[in-house]
């Protein structure tokens, strides 16, 4: 026998029945607002729906007032075909092609159940891209964990990597890059951010709107089960306490991934789009059916009638609240004209994708759901889709001044060649800078056959059009240390690095996505970090002329009262006019006995060590001020690199970031299997380890030095020739020399020693 369901009429008759709003993550004031909107208490199904829709994760209730800055800054970009508010932003890259890309967090699920948490993070972002009408073509992942040697990192990291590997490889998407870093602030709250990029023709763009009364609403893909119930509200929108056993108690809130079904869903959707069978479409991610129905209805004609008992279930005991809140993966919801439903279902059948008509679009302005003939939901959809808006208190943290006063200038510096040599080796073998092959070898970077560059290159590069050579470059960056010292400048430095990483491939940076990972928004100091980061990013994007096309906010990344370092992860997309002219980081061997290529260091080097890898790795120090961003210089550097790549003047280019010139030289030597010899023009320590922004090291083809010098002058980019490529050692003249074999040994042994 079915249990008696809480219907709308019953809610009217029992106004004082207590309801578990607090357990579902709603405040008393929010509960009161829901009752006032409805003119009665909500049913248990409505309460479930509002609780997930009004969760921080889905509603952006604490961040919305700040995120408006991005829209203001992006308004005048001509490249945007769809922007913030859509499932993902869409950017025109020319030749009739458009690109959509987005990065999202799956931090909390990945801590509770690393393998499935990370796997479904990939699956979720892929469906976002698919819902825009694009074919997903690549993924990236930005990962941050607690100290590399900590026992819990040994639990979380291998599981996260295997989850990304399992899902992305099976789905057939190349993983072309990302990040891996370690810091104690992430020990109880790792960051797992997944990016997906998709390609479409301009007129393939799909909308998330239920328009046209009488059009049918179809749920397709996996069946709905009890997995992930409350993922958006109780898991993603609350901080972890420090109590033991809490992770396992929340494990049922983590979803389970089925990448093969997702692969079928991708191909099925693309065929449905091509046949013109879709009026509107929405992926099911956080908040499942609740979110898809309310957002489609709110974005369209305004009304929808849904029969919840028509939802195909994998567990027959589920009732309306669980069906609405379930985050079962690999599901999509489409709006289809009645005359085309049979064709739609036939395409689904071809791909073995299960589909069910569960409702239709109405013009009533109400989202009405029935369960075996009785009404269990009857709400204005926009009241759930829009959610509350909070102006949280913002206050600069009391410890910021003390942090700034901890000047890295007081740290002891390496005084001679032997000490500089040892410092470089220590940096190169530190977990955050060590070779990432242990991780990236588990990802398929080749599948689809269009990967031109992938990790450990600075940016990933994917060919879009084989005939013209058109391609897209992507990079993600984050730096919790810089942002902890100064969230405004730190975020601009992160943006600048991602922008530069795209530029050193020879691509032109075009657009920005972001995943903003912060602590609790209820902590005014965290809200200050957040507001500063958003302001820094909006100002930075305006200065660089690249719009923010969308993104994701992840709050409540903390353990007890200790928040993670503020960690905005920024993704930059660029367009490459001809991927055959791409630049890579590896120093090429000198061909046929000719003189080695000249090494030119582009940009200005100042003594900037606040938040640097040197201060952190060698001294465990975090303090002072981060390097000063120079966004105008970044722009000039990027246009110089694009011009030099197009003219074929360079044989390698590598951006300078963590660990400065020393680490960049070592990486380029190892990647290309060729050494170099450099002479430093000033204080060796500063030139080797400073992290001044807006810099890159390039190797110039021997016959093209004069042409390159002219190009540098024309772009107003300072460059200093510091040496030549060649040999089997990294040599800093007068100071030290390291054989490549020794560099490779130090660089590659760290992660295997830690993780097996």
């Amino acid at each position, binding site marked *: 026998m079915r249990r008696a369901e809480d219907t709308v009429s019953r809610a009217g008759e029992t106004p004082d029945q207590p309801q578990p709003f607090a357990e579902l993550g709603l405040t008393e004031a929010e509960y009161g607002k829901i009752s006032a909107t409805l003119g009665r208490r909500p049913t248990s199904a409505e309460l479930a729906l509002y609780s997930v829709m009004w969760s921080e994760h889905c509603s952006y209730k604490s961040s919305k007032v700040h995120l408006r800055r991005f829209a203001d800054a992006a308004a005048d970009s001509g490249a945007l075909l769809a922007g913030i508010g859509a499932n993902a932003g869409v950017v025109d890259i020319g030749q009739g092609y458009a690109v959509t890309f987005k990065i999202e967090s799956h931090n909390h699920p990945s801590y509770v159940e690393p393998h499935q948490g990370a796997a479904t993070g990939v699956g979720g972002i892929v469906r976002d891209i698919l819902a825009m009408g694009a074919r997903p073509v690549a993924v990236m992942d930005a990962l941050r964990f607690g100290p590399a040697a900590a026992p819990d990192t040994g639990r979380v990291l291998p599981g996260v990597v*295997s989850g990304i*590997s*399992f899902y992305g*490889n*099976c789905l*057939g998407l190349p993983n072309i890059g990302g990040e891996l870093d370690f810091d104690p602030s992430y020990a109880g709250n790792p960051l797992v951010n997944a990016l997906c990029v998709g390609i479409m023709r301009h007129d393939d763009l799909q909308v998330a709107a239920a328009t046209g009364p009488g059009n049918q609403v179809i749920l397709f893909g996996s069946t709905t089960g009890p997995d992930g119930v409350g993922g958006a509200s109780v898991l993603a929108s609350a901080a972890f306490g420090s109590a033991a056993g809490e992770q396992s108690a929340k494990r049922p809130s983590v979803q389970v991934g*089925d*990448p*093969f*079904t997702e*692969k079928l869903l991708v191909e099925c959707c693309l065929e449905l789009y091509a046949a013109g069978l879709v009026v509107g479409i929405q992926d099911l991610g956080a908040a499942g059916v609740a979110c898809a129905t309310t957002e489609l209805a709110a974005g369209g004609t305004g009304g929808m009638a849904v029969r919840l008992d028509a939802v195909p279930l994998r567990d027959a005991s589920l009732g309306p609240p669980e069906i609405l809140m379930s985050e079962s993966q690999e599901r999509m919801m489409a709006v289809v004209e009645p005359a085309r439903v049979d064709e739609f279902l036939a395409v689904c059948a071809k791909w073995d994708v299960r589909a069910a008509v569960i409702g239709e679009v109405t013009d009533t302005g109400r989202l009405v759901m029935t369960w075996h003939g009785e009404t269990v939901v009857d709400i204005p959809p926009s009241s759930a889709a829009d959610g509350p808006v909070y102006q949280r208190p913002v206050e600069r943290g009391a410890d910021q001044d003390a942090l700034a006063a901890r000047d890295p200038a007081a740290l002891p510096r390496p005084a001679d060649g032997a000490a500089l040599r040892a410092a470089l080796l220590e940096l190169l073998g530190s977990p955050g800078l060590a070779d990432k092959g242990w991780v*990236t*070898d*588990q*990802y*398929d*970077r*080749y*599948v689809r*056959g*269009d*990967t*031109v560059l992938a990790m450990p290159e600075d940016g990933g590069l994917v*060919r879009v059009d084989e005939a013209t050579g058109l391609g897209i470059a992507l990079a993600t960056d984050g730096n919790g240390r810089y942002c902890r010292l100064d969230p405004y400048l730190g975020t601009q430095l992160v943006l600048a690095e991602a922008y530069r990483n795209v530029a050193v491939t020879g691509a032109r940076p075009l657009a920005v996505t972001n995943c903003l990972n912060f602590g609790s928004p209820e902590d005014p100091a965290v809200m200050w970090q957040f507001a500063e980061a958003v302001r820094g990013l909006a100002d930075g994007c305006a200065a660089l002329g690249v719009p923010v096309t969308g993104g994701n906010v992840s709050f409540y990344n903390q353990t007890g009262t200790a928040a993670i370092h503020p960690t905005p992860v920024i993704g930059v997309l660029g367009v490459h006019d001809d*991927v*055959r002219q791409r630049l890579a980081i590896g120093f090429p061997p000198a061909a046929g006995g000719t003189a080695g290529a000249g090494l030119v260091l582009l940009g200005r080097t100042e003594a900037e060590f606040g938040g640097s890898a040197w201060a952190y790795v060698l001294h465990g120090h975090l303090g002072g001020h981060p390097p000063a961003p120079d966004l105008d210089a970044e722009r000039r550097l990027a246009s110089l690199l694009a011009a030099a790549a197009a003219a074929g003047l360079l044989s390698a280019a590598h951006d300078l970031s963590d660990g400065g010139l020393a680490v960049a030289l070592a990486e380029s030597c190892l990647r290309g299997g060729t050494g170099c010899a450099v002479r430093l023009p000033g204080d060796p320590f500063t030139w080797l380890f400073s992290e001044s922004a807006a810099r890159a090291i390039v190797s110039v083809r021997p016959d093209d030095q004069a042409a390159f010098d002219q190009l540098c002058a024309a772009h107003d980019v300072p460059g200093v020739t510091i040496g030549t490529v060649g040999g089997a050692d990294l040599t800093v003249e007068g100071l030290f020399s390291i054989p490549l074999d020794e560099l490779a040994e130090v660089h590659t042994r760290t992660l295997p020693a830690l993780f*097996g």
Partner: protein
Amino acid sequence: MLWHGDRELRGVDAAILPGGFSYGDYLRCGAIARFAPVMRELVPAARAGLPVLGICNGFQILCEAHLLPGALTRNAGLRFITRDLPLRVERAQTAWTRAYADGEQILVPLKSGEGAYAADPGTLAGLRASGQVVITYAEANPNGSADGIAGVCNAEGNVVGLMPHPEHAVDPLTGPSADGLGFFTSVVAGVAA
């Protein structure tokens, strides 16, 4: 292109079972795909001489279908591996390797989680004796394959399976080399002859 549900081969001159994750590989790799309707036609055609190449998951399916001897098991180390690897062509006298010379070394990516070739000692000895070992890993054995075997063929040499992906080594722009092209030029030349 042949569809898994096809019940005829539509007159193709050769067939490639590509890599991928048939049915998600949630069960043993290839164990379900060997029952796909198209396999009912493909298996007798292969036994009758149709050139068939299985790459990665395709190799696993050919083993599951008993068109090739042995089996593929989880990598030593139990992790998925993507790596550009030097391979040695041990036998150039097959439908898919005649563009190469015996002993030629080629650079081709491997990317698999269940790529460790396994067979009983008698089968391995038989394979070596009859020249059915087609491709081996030229340097370090990446995944614990028996005898460093990366690919084998049937006794007639028309059915070849290998774990590495020659289709990812057809253009230096998108792969480590163009060394994998020979698999495809081999069969084209054979069909055209």
